């Protein structure tokens, strides 16, 4: 219960779900065009540092998406990709699906923040299906986003509810895309995907490198500028 509901690997260590969102938000430059995946990645919008303006894209056809209105308010035909009612900011624009995915596939979006089932050391991402026999397969825009957006950040717990690593040598779940992940933000660390594999950027407060490595299914390189992080 604690791991699932708080988004933390262990109840006393690392970033909360909100803490991860806040950490992601610090790395998004002013003026970026950003697509936040459905669910936990949506939290990032709450933590954008003062003085920065981001333009949010929702693939069902809106640039300049604003916060959701109070329950029961809003327009049922002004929704986000998660089919929740949203608002629009000054400068917003509507468009059809072909145009929306031209923005995505054509490399016009600066950043996408997505959830993950697994991320591999070579940047492969699995986030749409566990491949279970009784599952109803559904993909939405995930494969288009990872194929086209300039940078793909993954926001995830470091391990599954059962304690299995989500950062792995090779994905075992069906892929969303090959070699597409730029950086992973977990409750324990910020980790880049490099040509040599995972590389530590930053540890969450109070978390030791070995603790993260033990919970990761592939080697993590230590950051270049300093040792013994």
């Amino acid at each position: 219960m604690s791991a699932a509901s708080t988004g933390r690997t262990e109840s006393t260590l690392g970033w909360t779900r909100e803490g991860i969102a806040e950490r992601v938000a610090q790395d998004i430059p002013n003026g970026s065009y950003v697509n936040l995946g459905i669910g936990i990645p949506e939290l990032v919008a709450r933590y954008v540092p003062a003085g920065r303006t981001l333009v949010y894209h929702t693939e069902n056809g809106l640039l300049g998406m604003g916060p959701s209105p109070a329950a029961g308010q809003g327009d049922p035909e002004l929704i986000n990709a998660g089919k929740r009612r949203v608002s629009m900011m000054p400068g917003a624009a509507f468009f059809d699906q072909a145009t929306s995915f031209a923005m995505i596939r054509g490399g016009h979006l600066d950043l996408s923040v997505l959830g993950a089932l697994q991320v591999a050391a070579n940047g492969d991402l699995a986030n749409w299906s566990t491949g279970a026999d009784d599952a109803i397969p559904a993909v939405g825009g995930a494969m288009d986003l990872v194929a086209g957006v300039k940078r793909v950040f993954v926001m995830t717990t470091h391990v599954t509810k059962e304690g299995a690593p989500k950062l792995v040598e090779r994905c075992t779940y069906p892929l969303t895309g090959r070699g597409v992940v730029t950086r992973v933000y977990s409750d324990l660390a910020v980790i880049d995907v490099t040509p040599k594999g995972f590389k530590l950027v930053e540890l969450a407060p109070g978390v030791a490198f070995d603790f993260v490595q033990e919970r990761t299914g592939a080697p993590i390189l230590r950051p270049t500028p300093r040792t013994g992080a």
Partner: protein
Amino acid sequence: MIDKRVASAREAVADVRDGATVMIGGFGEAGSPIELIHALIDQGAKGLTVISNNTGTGLVGLAALLRAGRVRKVICSFPRTAGSTVFPDLYRAGKVELELVPQGTLAERIRAGGAGIAAFYTPTAAGTPLADGKETRAFDGREHVLEHGLRADFTLIKGRVADTHGNVLFHRTARNFAPMMATAAAVTIVQAAEVVQAGTLDPECVVTQGIFVDRVVHVPSPALESALNEAGASYP
């Protein structure tokens, strides 16, 4: 004189044949042409192939068409929205076929079909199970997947305003797939909350041009899936 208005949703869908391919606009409930779908249920055509992003929620609209047993195959990107039980049950029982397509590829396949493009290469889904069995080719060292354009016998969409020539404006994120679907069917049917005479709309603002539209039905107060579901409605 051109006047594409027809008297009712029932009249608009009267010639849909068994086995037809039907594109249905909407992303979730936004843009779902519920009155046209319900007219299609009443009309009775069966063995349909439906191309739509989702599969409907509750027991109304697209979900009701599926529940009535009229759909042989669904081509869509996301068939299991919250509140969607009809499609999952039919799929697990082997009573409906599913062709799962990434959302952007679905949009582009429809756009291509309507634009006279037989097929195109896209990087989306390369190296994933959704590219299995498809022709691939490398461009600039990157693998791309060959995807075919989609066409249909009928398209059903919802607009906010249409004129008598079939020019259409949409409402916010209800636009979604409608403009491409309008181009890709032999017969495109629009239900619009407001219908005006040609010459009323600002030509600079027309989103779907009348050349793509065959029939316009005035549906002054279109139902919304969520409101019908909250009221516990089912169709028929």
